[in-house]
């Protein structure tokens, strides 16, 4: 059973804090993703990684960075949290094959106050 595990379900952080969201997958998938989910906007891709130490910007990378030092782990970093980054963050992983689905974690509800 594929598992994508996000380190926290709920987080409350203060404006200006540096925030780390962690994600681990156990299926040896090459691709890992960070999405942001907001009502009416669907899922928007922040960053994705196609291999260890490799990353590519998604649609909304501003204010975020990522790290992938090991294949199974993909971290999202908010360098200086702001209130407009309050959102649900979803991590996903997938193989390189086009006909395979992505598997998602439970999500992290981040509130920046």
């Amino acid at each position: 059973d594929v598992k994508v595990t996000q380190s926290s379900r709920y987080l409350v952080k203060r404006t200006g804090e540096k925030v780390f969201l962690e994600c681990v997958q156990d299926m040896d998938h090459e691709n890992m993703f960070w999405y942001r989910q907001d009502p009416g906007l669907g899922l928007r891709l922040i960053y994705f990684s196609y291999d260890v130490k490799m990353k590519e910007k998604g649609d909304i990378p501003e204010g975020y960075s990522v790290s992938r030092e090991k294949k199974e782990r993909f971290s999202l970093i908010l360098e200086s949290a702001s209130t407009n980054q309050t959102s649900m963050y979803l991590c996903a992983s997938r193989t390189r094959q086009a006909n395979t689905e992505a598997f998602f974690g439970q999500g992290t509800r981040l509130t920046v106050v």
Partner: protein
Amino acid sequence: AQSVSQHNHHVILSEAASLELGCNYSYGGTVNLFWYVQYPGQHLQLLLKYFSGDPLVKGIKGFEAEFIKSKFPFNLRKPSVQWSDTAEYFCAVPSSNTGKLIFGQGTTLQVKP
């Protein structure tokens, strides 16, 4: 560039009504199409996918979709909805030259008992 559009943002149905949710997409390569579902408080999970073969694809919980041909809508259908189908539904396509999955805006389905 690939894109996905879901025009129905919020659908309200009574139990036993038939369901059809629209998904329009533009795709440059081999067609792979996905529908995901997110039940309240749960993670996103695959509902069904099409990548080749029988154009009528059957997913979990009685959902189905039909691939007609490229550039035609890949609409999600269910003959008779239940209260437990209340959820958010997302259509997705993979990027043709990367491993990214591109999602539509999502459709919130509310089924009244």
